């Protein structure tokens, strides 16, 4: 049974699953967070183009690591919740 079917069934039978709603909120939240992480990477790139010569590689590593971790948490929330 897919999550959507489960959602419909819960609504149909009137026994609404509260934790399922929380799971959806978590997944939407982490999805939006991935967008934010992508914006951060882009922003670091734009900022570093304004001033050339600054050592920005640690920031780039942090930004990419941040995106990777955000995707990992998104997938984790889909699987374990």
């Amino acid at each position, binding site marked *: 049974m897919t999550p959507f079917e489960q959602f419909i069934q819960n609504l149909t039978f009137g026994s609404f699953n509260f934790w399922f709603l929380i799971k959806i909120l978590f997944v939407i*939240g982490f999805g939006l*967070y991935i967008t*934010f992480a992508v914006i951060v990477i882009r922003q670091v790139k734009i*900022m570093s*183009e*304004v001033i050339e010569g600054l050592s920005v590689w640690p920031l780039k590593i*942090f930004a990419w690591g941040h995106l990777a971790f955000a995707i990992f948490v998104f997938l*984790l*929330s889909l699987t374990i*919740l």
Partner: protein
Amino acid sequence: MPDIFVRPQKETKTTPLKKLVMPKKEPVFKKSFGFLSAFIPHPINLRYEFQEKDEKIVLFLRRHFFTNFGWLIVTFCLALVPIFAFSFFPFEFVPLSFRFIGFIAWYLLTFAFAFERFLSWFFNVNIVTDKRIIDVNFPSILYKDISEAKLDNIQDVSSKTGGFARSFLNYGDVLIQTAGALPELSFEAIPFPDKVAEIINDLIAEEEGEL
């Protein structure tokens, strides 16, 4: 025929490369150019996006590192919240998987807050060149605001220091009144504000002398 006297050859002194690259005038401060430096006189490797070929950066400034103290404390407190929350209130009614994900989400948001504040500090810079003054601002992660004033448009330069931390650590604001479209530029919370004002005034005097 053997030589009776051989005049010793004079050693020819070669000018070190550093002297050729660096300007004749000695920098006011000799600060190491570190990753987190807030005051860099005569940076050699730095280049501004719209820098002209014959333009040289005289000062590269950003807010004093101490100005990060506020958000660092907030981040530290935010990092402690889950530890205290779980020790005082065990959240047993919440399933373990939700507690775990909530825990991670909290630290992810805390990291995002700290990283965004650090980026804001790191890239909000002020540049003084031998031709103009540039103020690079990133008010938030989605906005970029660059304002500049040519040295011959500057009317008045003043520095302002006040408060315990600012007086103790010698950082403050430099206000630059201009005759251009932008009436005032301000370098906020930069190290050695009086010296920066002095350097800008010297550059203006040099610029006026050239005209």
